[in-house]
């Protein structure tokens, strides 16, 4: 058993427990899970919890001696303690219900979270999945950021000029669509491929052409913030998982102690993290 998820508190002898969810997926808690967290905070903690910036919940003021009991309590609820230190952090994902999220990443997040849970890496590693370019989960300042892209196409179906796709506030956020007499026109320069318009287009003039994922590497916050660099675009979920595997394997192979992915890229270049041809 590792000590991941147990953080040093301000009061001596008391620590803070970081709890992340695995089921349904990292960004969601079920009613039952909230109940368990409330019970723990009431019984073992100081009666309040902190919701962190990375979709975990922290329960402060917990005696170290009661941690085993708490772990038993949460065992089969889909919650787990962890996501701290050098152990891989929980995989962040944006909400399932969001309008701009053309291809929800919740299943992928749950899959990745289960796969990497508890593994130890050279340094802190954040994986964030975003369903659109606006990246609420901060894909562009995470070590491994994924942004789902939805390429759109104009089909043969006639545009009825209902203008739903350009009428504020629920419209194309990038002003990439113009409605002319001939139908909808898409400015590919402005389009960020979020795929939102395909959901509001009633006649089906604008439709999904293909889904893909952009991978960004090496972003971080902290003392020395760094914006992530674009790594590559992959076409399918399987390939995305394979790429993330390869990135983490490459990172473990070349990184020094406490070195983040961004530092590795600065030192050795992006090629150190690519899949090696055998």
């Amino acid at each position, binding site marked *: 058993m590792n000590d991941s998820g147990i953080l040093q508190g301000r009061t001596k002898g008391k620590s803070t427990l970081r709890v992340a969810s695995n089921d349904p997926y990292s960004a969601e808690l079920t009613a039952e899970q*909230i109940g368990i967290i409330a019970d723990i905070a009431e019984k073992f903690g100081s009666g309040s919890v902190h919701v962190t910036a990375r979709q975990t919940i922290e329960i402060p003021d917990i005696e170290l001696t009661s941690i085993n009991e708490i772990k038993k309590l949460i065992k089969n609820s889909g919650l787990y303690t962890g996501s701290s230190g050098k152990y891989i952090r929980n995989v962040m994902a944006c909400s399932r219900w969001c309008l701009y999220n053309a291809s929800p990443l919740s299943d992928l997040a749950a899959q990745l979270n289960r796969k990497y849970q508890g593994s130890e890496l050279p340094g802190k590693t954040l994986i964030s999945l975003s369903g659109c370019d606006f990246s609420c989960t901060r894909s562009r300042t995470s070590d491994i950021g994924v942004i789902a892209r939805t390429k759109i196409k104009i089909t043969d179906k006639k545009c009825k000029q209902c203008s739903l796709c350009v009428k504020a506030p629920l419209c194309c956020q990038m002003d990439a669509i113009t409605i002319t007499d001939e139908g909808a026109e898409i400015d590919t320069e402005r389009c960020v491929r979020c795929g939102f318009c395909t959901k509001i287009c009633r006649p089906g003039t604008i439709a999904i052409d293909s889904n893909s994922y952009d991978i960004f590497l090496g972003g971080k916050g902290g003392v020395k913030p760094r914006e992530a660099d674009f790594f590559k675009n992959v076409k399918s979920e399987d390939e995305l998982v394979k790429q993330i595997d390869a990135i983490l394997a490459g990172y473990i192979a070349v990184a020094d102690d406490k070195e983040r992915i961004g530092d590795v890229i600065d030192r050795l270049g992006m090629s150190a993290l690519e899949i090696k041809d055998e």
Partner: protein
Amino acid sequence: MSDNESEFKLEMPKVGIIKGVLAKDIEVVGGKVVNIRTCARPYKNMYSVAQLRTIKKVIEKYGSGKVHLSPRHNFEIPEVKQKEIENVLKDLYISGLFPGGAGTSVRNIFTCPDWCSKQIRPVQELGERVSFNSGDKDMPNKVAISFAGCSNSCSRPQNADIGITAIGEVGVNDKTCPDDCKECIRSCQFDAMEKHNGTITINDKCTYCCKCVESCPETVLSIKKTGFRITVGGKEGSNVMFGKECALFVDDFEAFEIIEKVLRHYQEKVAFRPGSSKKKERLGEVIERLGLEDFMS
């Protein structure tokens, strides 16, 4: 109180009710199903057990039995039916939860937790004060204000429109520093620490993050003075911007004044985004257009 309950009239909040759908339910785009984003008011960076239980009750009764954790410590209650909004809000209000933190307004203030052992200077009180004064205020575009108690910046102040980070000036004490110890030099990410003949000097590359103090095994280094660094104009999203420094070593009162001033100037100097007639600029874009000095004057 129970007598007044029947007269209790609910004002529909301007923000916090977000239209949303599940990807498969295309039919409900008209706004039949909404999501409610809640934050604790008066502002707190912690949720109490009672509030958690309220959320549990609400999502079981009116929602889908699930709640989303947002990256700005809000809870989002998805899939609430339009006609149930009032009931949900009543339940939430009673336990001190309010809808908010959405739309073109000052988003939920984000401070790091007060139990953290790494904090240089507490930020919670300042956060509460700022939230009281300008929380959920109407703005030309989204304004995110983040407070961090140390330079680890868990709340991402560099990427917030207004970021407040606690910093400290490092002082070198008279104590003898062991010759072979290089912990502080190793911990510094900016090459600001120098050691000549057993004495440590700090050069002007220092960014006041105080990592060296944390690493010092003896008590040679200590924090002499604390204050806040204020950065403005950061943003996340499609076009990442890091905030520009506009004040250094300010105290709580000055920080509060500067935040108010920035918000005021933003409302005065904002324009539409180039090529758009719908969306106004974010704070960072205004500052990029005018320059920081012009913006602040």
